[in-house]
């Protein structure tokens, strides 16, 4: 993984000192609330009435075991002993005290981490594919480019006061696990006919209010021009994006208002006038950063192991976990292993300090000392020797990490909702618990197959409900939590936004409603058709008819 040199370290250290001074001036009354707000947000700090929150960046999802131990220490010292993995490769701590945040940031800096630009109207943490570098379907590793973007976007003088937040995602694989179509900028590594590596560039995707799928503005951008092109897009947005209404300030609204073709022209015109040589990325720099992501020392004979096949044949529980929670690796004899943070008795994405430490030890023992976070609020051990899988499985199970539900209905994404978020309209964690309780039969879950269930506590959509195969949106009805159900969303290759099933349902009816939806799928599916494929083929009408039939 990337290691800071003296320059990188200096910047995060000086950033901590700067925020310490800003906090001091705020507490002394020299800096007004309105003026302090963007400063603290650009250091990841939300101050909400009942639960403050500090969002720490995990650049492109990569953590060393030492960093994870430091996060455990922070959770214990400054929080109530746990952290929350978000959908955008961040970890969030609740309950930090403002006066202590500079100390937390200093602890992070000591392990080459930061909370820079994890919130605010600036370029956010650049995200990527959790299987980067190990996925068999990968053209090129996206992480070096994410790191290059991280450095370019850190304290960018021109783009720190944008109209609104700005999110970039990069993927290098055929199968899009980074949701590039629902980001402000999505980058897909591609090769042109001569084999040169570059990017397909998408702009204007985004969730939240007015969700939109991004449009392609460039089919092939040579990789050396990456930063010039990003500046062209950002400058166009910084100058033309709306600033009069925060709900209309995202780049997606600008792209829609100008029209995709015209917007692409504006960007190309800016790009043509930019001093491209000034920002050109030399191959040597790309190679310097790539060297940090070189494959670890895999054992050449790992595939010769026969113990795995043997265990799979004789141990049903292990085989079940293996099928659901591990995926193929490009190195023969290795697997990537999902660490499920979706045990039925815990809020999705939550992780205790003790669990972090256990995981750090497992990473050291089995996966070259690295852990990754996923967009589905799980973790991943990316480089596990197949012969080690049984031992790892047992250790994960002991720590509550082996719920064999990855990719199934109960591997749901949920934002913190009413329990932790002051913007929430409705609870999410109690609904997650209700769903877990209702759908606790693994055989039924496996029969249903891959289903992405995403839940948000309000229309800000932090739980990405628009792109769940099943999306649940909490709404407030006269002070009560109700839930709108959507079907047919996806953030993968053929991205689509879910369609609303019908009137919202009361809290106690959510699991029952899902049961009707799922029964409809089971009745209508053809052959091996997945839930999403069935919804796409038959539309939402049959689901609607069944769910609302009884009500009339």
């Amino acid at each position, binding site marked *: 993984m990337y290691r800071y040199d003296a320059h990188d370290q*200096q910047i995060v250290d000086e950033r901590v000192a700067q925020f310490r001074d800003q906090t001091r001036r705020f507490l002394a009354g020299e800096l007004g609330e309105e003026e302090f707000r963007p400063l603290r947000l650009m250091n990841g700090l939300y101050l909400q009435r009942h639960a403050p929150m500090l969002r720490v960046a995990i650049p492109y999802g990569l953590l060393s075991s030492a960093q994870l131990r430091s996060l455990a220490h922070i959770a214990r010292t400054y929080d109530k002993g746990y952290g929350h993995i978000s959908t955008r490769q961040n970890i969030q701590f609740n309950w930090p005290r403002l006066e202590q945040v500079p100390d937390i940031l200093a602890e992070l800096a000591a392990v080459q981490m930061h909370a820079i630009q994890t919130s605010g109207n600036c370029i956010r943490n650049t995200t990527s594919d959790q299987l980067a570098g190990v996925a068999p379907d990968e053209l090129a590793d996206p992480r070096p480019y994410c790191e290059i973007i991280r450095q*370019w976007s850190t304290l960018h003088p*021109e783009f720190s*006061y944008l109209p609104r937040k700005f999110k970039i995602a990069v993927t290098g694989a055929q199968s899009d696990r980074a949701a590039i179509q629902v980001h402000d900028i999505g980058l897909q590594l591609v090769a042109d006919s001569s084999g040169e590596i570059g990017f397909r560039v998408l702009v204007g995707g985004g969730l939240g209010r007015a969700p939109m799928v991004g449009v392609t503005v460039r089919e092939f951008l040579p990789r050396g021009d990456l930063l010039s092109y990003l500046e062209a897009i950002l400058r166009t947005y910084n*100058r033309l994006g709306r600033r009069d209404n925060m709900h209309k300030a995202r780049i997606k609204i600008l792209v829609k208002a100008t029209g995709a073709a015209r917007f692409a022209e504006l960007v190309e015109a800016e790009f043509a006038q930019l001093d491209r040589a000034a920002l050109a990325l030399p191959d040597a720099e790309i190679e310097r950063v790539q060297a940090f992501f070189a494959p670890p020392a895999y054992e050449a004979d790992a595939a010769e192991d026969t113990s795995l096949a043997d265990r799979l044949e004789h141990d049903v529980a292990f085989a079940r976990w293996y099928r659901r929670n591990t995926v193929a690796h490009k190195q023969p004899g290795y697997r990537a292993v999902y660490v499920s943070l979706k045990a039925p008795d815990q809020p999705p994405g939550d992780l205790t300090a003790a669990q972090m430490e256990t995981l750090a030890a497992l990473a050291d023992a089995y996966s070259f000392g690295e852990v990754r976070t996923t967009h589905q609020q799980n973790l991943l051990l990316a480089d596990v020797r197949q012969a080690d899988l049984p031992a790892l499985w047992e250790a994960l199970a002991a720590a509550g990490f082996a719920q064999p539900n990855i990719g199934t209905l109960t591997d749901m994404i949920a934002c913190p909702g009413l329990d932790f978020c002051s913007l929430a309209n409705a609870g999410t964690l109690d609904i997650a618990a209700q769903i877990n309780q209702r759908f606790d039969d693994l055989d039924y879950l496996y029969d249903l197959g891959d289903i992405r269930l995403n839940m948000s506590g309000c229309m800000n959509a932090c739980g990405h409900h628009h792109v769940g195969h099943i999306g649940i949106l909490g709404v407030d009805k006269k002070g009560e939590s109700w839930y709108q159900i959507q079907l047919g969303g996806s953030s993968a290759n053929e991205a689509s936004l879910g369609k609303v099933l019908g009137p919202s349902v009361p809290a106690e009816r959510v699991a029952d409603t899902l049961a009707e939806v799922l029964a409809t799928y089971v009745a209508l599916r053809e052959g091996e058709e997945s839930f999403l494929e069935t919804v796409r083929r038959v539309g939402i009408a049959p689901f609607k008819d069944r769910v609302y039939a009884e009500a009339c």
Partner: protein
Amino acid sequence: MTLIKDGRLIKDHWRRLGPSEPLPPAGDVIVPWARWPVEAEALQAHDGAVGVQIGPEETAEELAPILPALGAIAIEFPVFKDGRGYSTARLLRERYGFTGELRATGDVLIDQLFFLQRVGFDVLELRPDQKVQDALAALRQFSVRYQAGADEAQPLYRRR
């Protein structure tokens, strides 16, 4: 009024004129941009340097044709969160080669000075309530920059 240039306090040699204030017989003046089209001739004949003040809506492209006649451009930040002026400044400096004074004015606060100076503002006109010592310190808070800028010819990746 507190003006910072190159990390030091300076005195203002420009006089700011309102929308209808008559031109003095001589001396350096900054006038609102709206006066330029109407009074271009008088302003160009003025005995002293002439600058204009623009808001966030005005663009570098609009100013480009008259840059040789201008000794200063003041870009106003009505609220510090309006970041358009940063792009305008960079374009004026980098694309249109403006070498006169580029002044940030309006809601100019301590915590944005570092960015302002990096995009090409050479004169920072602090909002009156800002503490001068903290402002000067803020300009020295970072010793490393990833990007090129007015204070750094090359991005860090060419200097490692």
